[in-house]
């Protein structure tokens, strides 16, 4: 649900290595032919090592994003202002956990393990969607995340349902099915607030002001600055370019904002009749990269919370394993 729609190298600043041509020619030809024919690659099929590595990184980043994404929204579960909203939020956060799980499953088909992937996340090596490195400061943030962040994620995810790697595509189909309620619920919550008290309206506008530009940045750097996208597209992993997705998102969101009655905080945002699209202002890419590289407002908190949960839970996981082994031993004794 919350994926960065571009594959971030684990060492940003260093571009991904170009695909080495050390793979067997005939296997590569067959693989390329299948991709070109829009076919699917399945776990047991031969694949170039670079394809496998790219997918492991992208799918696991996507999974990590879902898990970390539970935190900014989880921040408001205990304080939700009505029981209905509380239930909706718990369900949403639970779905995010479930999506993380589907995605970890998909990644594991490529030969990595859950623990290896979690090690990557907890050590700070693996990335997750930068949007979750910002705080949720008011209840309206929850609605805005549903409307804008989930909205952006959906734009990115629907094309992934046609991704060349079977398990990832199928996981995305499942995710998209469950996703549609998330954006609607976020938007609906905002609609109610915008028809409410002056304080509620101000709360919503403030949340929009803080999140709008961050959401635009979610789609990744401009195409000209995204060398990795080319390979992703060649392999049927990335279907639509960063800029195209971003434009689509802006065009879809402007009328939604109008219905809500909020102002999108961009003085340069206006319809361009010639292009048939909305023009919009300059994204602060410096700030974006600062955050991606670990210097956003919440990076340390998000990561250390996940590390703590994992470490604090070790005794529980160990106990479950120990019990399972005891059961096995008893079963064997009985059989003997």
């Amino acid at each position, binding site marked *: 649900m919350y994926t960065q729609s571009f594959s971030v190298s684990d060492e940003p600043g260093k571009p991904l290595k170009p695909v080495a041509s050390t793979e067997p020619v005939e296997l590569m030809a067959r693989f390329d032919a299948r991709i070109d024919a829009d076919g699917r690659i*399945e776990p*047991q099929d031969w694949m170039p090592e670079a394809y496998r590595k790219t997918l492991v990184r992208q799918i696991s980043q996507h999974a990590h994003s879902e898990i970390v994404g539970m935190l900014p929204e989880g921040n408001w579960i205990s304080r939700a202002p009505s029981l209905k909203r509380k239930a909706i939020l718990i369900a949403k956060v639970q779905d995010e956990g479930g999506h993380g799980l*589907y995605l970890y*499953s998909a990644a594991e088909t490529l030969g990595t393990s859950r623990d290896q992937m979690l090690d990557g996340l907890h050590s700070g090596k693996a990335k997750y969607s930068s949007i979750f490195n910002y705080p949720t400061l008011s209840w309206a943030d929850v609605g805005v995340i549903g409307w804008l962040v989930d909205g952006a994620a959906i734009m990115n995810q629907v094309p992934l349902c046609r991704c060349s790697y079977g398990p990832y595509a199928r996981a995305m189909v499942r995710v998209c099915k469950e996703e549609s309620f998330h954006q609607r619920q976020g938007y609906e919550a905002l609609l109610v607030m915008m028809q409410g008290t002056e304080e509620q309206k101000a709360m919503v506008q403030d949340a929009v002001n803080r999140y709008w530009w961050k959401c635009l940045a979610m789609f990744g750097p401009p195409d000209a600055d995204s060398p990795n996208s080319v390979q992703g597209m060649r392999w049927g992993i990335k279907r639509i370019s960063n800029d195209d997705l971003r434009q689509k998102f802006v065009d879809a969101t402007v009328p939604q904002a109008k219905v809500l009655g909020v102002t999108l905080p961009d003085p340069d945002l206006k319809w361009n009749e010639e292009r048939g699209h909305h023009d919009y202002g300059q994204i602060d890419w410096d700030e974006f990269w600062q955050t991606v590289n670990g210097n956003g407002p919440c990076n340390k908190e998000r990561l250390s919370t996940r590390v703590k949960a994992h470490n604090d839970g070790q005794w529980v996981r160990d106990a*479950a*394993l120990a*019990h399972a082994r005891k059961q096995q031993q008893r079963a064997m004794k009985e059989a003997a």
Partner: protein
Amino acid sequence: MSAALKEWPLWEVFVRSKQGLEHKHCGSLHASDAQHALEMARDVYTRRQEGVSIWVLPSAQITASNPDDKGELFDPAADKIYRHPTFYEIPEAVGHM
């Protein structure tokens, strides 16, 4: 104890919906034993829908047929469902934990 032995084993989940005719593969999850896997599968893959049937199977115990376009170019030992299994297998005689 090696890192692999500390992880809950991987299970594949198959669900037949109330109106369904057969079990469909949904994905996988980690659980410590079969009972746990079933409960987890219910929570994760069925969201408590009624009347569904769930099967769970340790991933390591599934044997798969080989991909269609084989010939001499595929790995003949690849009869497990994932190419590089890292499954934890519970050893028979386990010492004190």
